[in-house]
Each structure stands twice: as C-alpha cells, then as structure tokens.
C-alpha cells in the first residue's frame, strides 16, 4: 500500500472513530481549545499592548515644568534655548492657563479647587520631542540634566520612565499568558493522550486481530495518530474562531473604547492564526504518540488489566 493511500485510510478511520466517540473526544478537543484560546488571547492582548507602547514611543516627550507665574516671553526664550539643544526635534510651550485646563480635564472632581484660586496655580511647561523617540543619546541626557539644575525649572519629567514600566507590565502579562498557555497545552496533550489511549483500549480486540493478521506497527498506529492530529486541529480552529469572535464582539460593542483600542486593535495575522492551529495539531499528534508507546499497545493485546 502506498504511503498516501495509507494516510487517506488512517484519516478515514480516525474520522469514523471521532464521530462514534464524539462525546469523549469533545472533552479533549475543548481542553486544547481552552489552552490555545488562553495562550492566544494573552498573545493577542500583549501584542496589541506592545503595539500601543510602540505607538506611544513615537509620541513620547520630555516635559520641562517651569516656575509658576513666569512671564510669557521668558517662557518663549527658554523654549528657543531648548530647541537648540542636541538631539531635540522640537519644543512646544504650554502656558499656565493651558496647564490648568488640562489639569481640570484630567481631574474633574478637583476642578473647583483649582478654579477658585486667584493666580494660575499650575506652572507653564515646555514639551520637548526628542529626535529619536526610542533612544536618548548621552548628549541629550546630559543636556536635560543640566536643565534640571536651572532655577527657572521646577521639574523635568521624562515619559520614558513610566513607558519603561508599562513595557515591564506587558512583558509580565506575556510571560503569565505564555506560562498559562503552555500549562494548559500540557494538560491538553495529556487529555488527548487519554482519549487516544482509551480509543486504543476500546479497539484492543481489533488491534490484536490486525497484529495477528500481519499488520505493521505503522498501519496499526496510523489511525490513532491521525485521530490525535484531527482533535488538535479541531481545537486549534475552534480557539482561533473564538478569539476572532471575542475580538469582533469587543469591536462591535464599543468600537472607540480605550479597551478595544488597547486590546483588540489588531487580530492575529493569517500566519499567526495558522501557527496556532498548527500548534494544536502538533499537540494532538504528540499526545497520540506519547499515549501509544510500545508497551501500551502490547498490553492491550493480551492482558485484561489495563483500562
């Protein structure tokens, strides 16, 4: 029998077994679905978050807060001085009034407090856009540090610091997701293995006859490997489908919400989706192979015990 013929026969046999024992197979398929779904969801969310971080990195600025009550022209002069610094692409001035308005927008409950005071309570500031948002060349850092020490400056705030922290959070998220996904995947492999071993047990009479009639190991194991592969494949498809549905739901419910933008801006690329499905199929195959080590099938042949 040719290899291709055999493969076709294996998959037909496996499909029949799956259809007959679908209730047990369902458990295995759903376990692998869950594991890939969780893994995929974390991947997707952290991927989207990372993309946001990347986007923000482009918008990242250094803010130089000046002393409150500083005159407009002095502010402009300082801005001009800053603009000439090394590695700086641009500088924008934010007046004290603009600062107060921003503050009131950010903390509406404290709005009244700031309003009631006579002077503008918040200082004007200068927003510096570095030429290369991702990196701070040493000259720029030294330059900013020198500004930190100037009396006109109350504080220099560098976005990069909290963005670094956000990146840490995303990395953590990704690690947790990966760990969870891998843990669940192992559970899924185990479950698929159980189901395959069970199918083999239920078919031990037939396996025994096949052996006695002269079937090769390859021929005997083929259908079981195919069954594991199919279960994993199905789980991969389901997981991808659920991910897609979840993402679509988020978009449909509140297309403009921060959450949607953060978590679901982008769905898996076809290549990533294919990798997920492939991972499922591979896991199924591994489960099948692991569950049918040589001893197992031999035991099933002669012995009454192993259940």
């Amino acid at each position, binding site marked *: 029998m040719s290899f291709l013929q055999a493969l076709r026969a294996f998959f037909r046999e496996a499909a029949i077994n799956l259809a007959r024992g679908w209730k047990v197979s369902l458990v295995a398929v759903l376990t692998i679905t869950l594991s890939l779904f969780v893994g995929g969801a974390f991947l997707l969310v952290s991927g989207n978050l990372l993309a946001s971080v990347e986007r923000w990195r482009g918008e990242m600025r250094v803010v130089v807060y000046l002393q409150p009550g500083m005159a407009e022209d002095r502010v402009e002069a300082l801005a001009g001085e800053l603009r000439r610094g090394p590695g700086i692409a641009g500088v924008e001035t934010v007046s004290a009034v603009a600062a107060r308005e921003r503050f009131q927008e950010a903390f509406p409950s404290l709005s009244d407090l700031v309003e009631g005071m006579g002077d503008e309570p918040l200082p004007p500031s200068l927003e510096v856009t570095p030429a290369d948002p991702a990196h701070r060349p040493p000259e720029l850092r030294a330059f900013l540090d020198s500004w930190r020490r100037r009396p006109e400056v109350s504080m220099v705030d560098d976005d990069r610091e909290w963005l670094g922290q956000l990146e840490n959070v995303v990395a953590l998220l990704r690690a947790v997701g990966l760990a969870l996904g891998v843990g669940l995947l192992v559970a899924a492999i185990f479950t698929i293995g159980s189901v395959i071993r069970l199918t083999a047990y239920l078919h031990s009479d037939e396996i025994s006859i*096949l052996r006695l*009639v002269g*079937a090769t190991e390859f021929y005997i194991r083929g259908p079981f490997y195919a069954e594991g592969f199919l279960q994993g494949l199905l789980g991969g498809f389901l997981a991808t489908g659920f991910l897609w549905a979840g993402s679509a739901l988020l978009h449909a419910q509140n297309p403009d919400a921060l959450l949607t933008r953060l978590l679901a801006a982008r769905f898996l690329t076809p290549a990533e989706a294919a990798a997920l499905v492939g991972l499922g199929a591979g896991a199924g195959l591994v489960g099948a192979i692991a569950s049918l080590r040589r001893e197992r099938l031999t035991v099933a042949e002669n012995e009454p015990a192993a259940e």
Partner: protein
Amino acid sequence: MIQFFQVSKRYPGGQTALDRVSFDIARGQFVFLTGASGAGKTSLLRLIFREDVPSEGQILVNGRNVSSIPPQKIPYLRRTIGVVFQDFRLISRKTVFENVTYLPRILGTDLTSQKKLAYQALRRVGLAHRLNAFPLELSGGEQQRVAIARALIHEPEILIADEPTGNLDPELSWDILRLFLEVNLRGTTVLLATHDREMIQRVGRRVLTLDAGRLILDQELQGIDPPRLEAPAEALEPPGPPVLEAAPEAGA
C-alpha cells in the same frame, strides 16, 4: 515447513502447557492435533504464528526461527499464515465483510477486489448472503464459519485451525473439512486441532496427540483404517443411572 525442537511452554502462573515437544511437518502435509482439554493444543498453535514465544526450544517455520525473528519481520511471517481461532475473535463493531477483509485491507487491495475476495471466501463456507450482518447477528456456527473465511481469504501457505468445527453440526463439519482438504490439495500446509475423533478417523492423515503438554503419539492414519486412539471404554456402555460423584480433575 514447521519444525519444533524440544519446545516447552510454561506460563507465568506456573502452568506447563508444553513439555519438550519435537516434530516436523513437511510442506503440503495435512496434520491433526488432538488431546484432552488443556493438553496444550492452543498453546502449541500460538507459538507457530508467534502470538507467544516458547520458554525453551526452537521453532522453525518456513526455515525461519520464529522466536529470534526481529519484531518488524513478524507481520510478514503472519501474512503467510491463515489462523482460525478457537474463540473466533470476530470484531463485533464490524460487519462480516469488514471482518473477513482485514488482510486484503492491510495489503492495500482496492475495494472491488476486497469485495470479490470476501464473496468468494464466504461462499465457500455458505455465508455469502450474510456479508453485511454483524457478528452478534449470527448464530454460533455462522460466526465460526466467518472466522474460517477470514483465515482463507488469501490462500495462505500455512493454515492453522483451532477447533474449527466445535459449533458446527456434523454435515457442516464435514463440508468444512472438505474445504480444508481442498485448500491442502492446492499446496497449503494444514494443522488442525480438534476433539472430533470421528472426523480424524474418517479423514485419516497424520495425527499428533498431546497429553498434559507432552507429545505422546505421532501416527499416520490411512483413510478409514480403524484409528488406534484409545476409545473410552465406558462411552460404549449404556448410560444407566448417572454416577453421583463429581467429575474427576481433568486438564493440566
């Protein structure tokens, strides 16, 4: 074709099924294997197609030592041997057709040829009309005949039949025996385990007799010559009132 050299078989439980058995069956011979229940007939047959390995001794089948044959060669040995199992070993989930066509399927025969082979084999045992039945829908004798058809589907080099007529009436038994003789005439070596002394007497041929694992008799019977097996004395007496003591411990 089949050679046993001082073969013993002891099971883990401590049962000795075979005790230094030696014989030599030539290609094309027709041999009966007989002996009481538990004498070791099935154990002996299982060694030939390597369903089990001997505890001691050597077995050559077709010139090959079957206990030292590498595992991946075993399937090819088995494909040349047709086996009728004492317990039939039909798969109840599969139809009669599927049950008899395991070997052609393994060999990659296409469906049309499979159907032709199955039909021919089943017709020989009188069951061509039950091709699509499941084993549990058949009578005991019909199941036994399906098992026979499976063993004969490709004319095997060696045919091993373990009590193949235990569930058949005398007429059918005779038909099946004729079938085996016919297969034998075409070159297949036949080894047939049976309790049926009448059958052995009628057919003659070579008879191996086991007793508690030992080969106690290896005779060549001629056609209807009176067999020289010890006939049970009391079997010829009138039954009379049944004896009230328990059956004597038989077997091992």
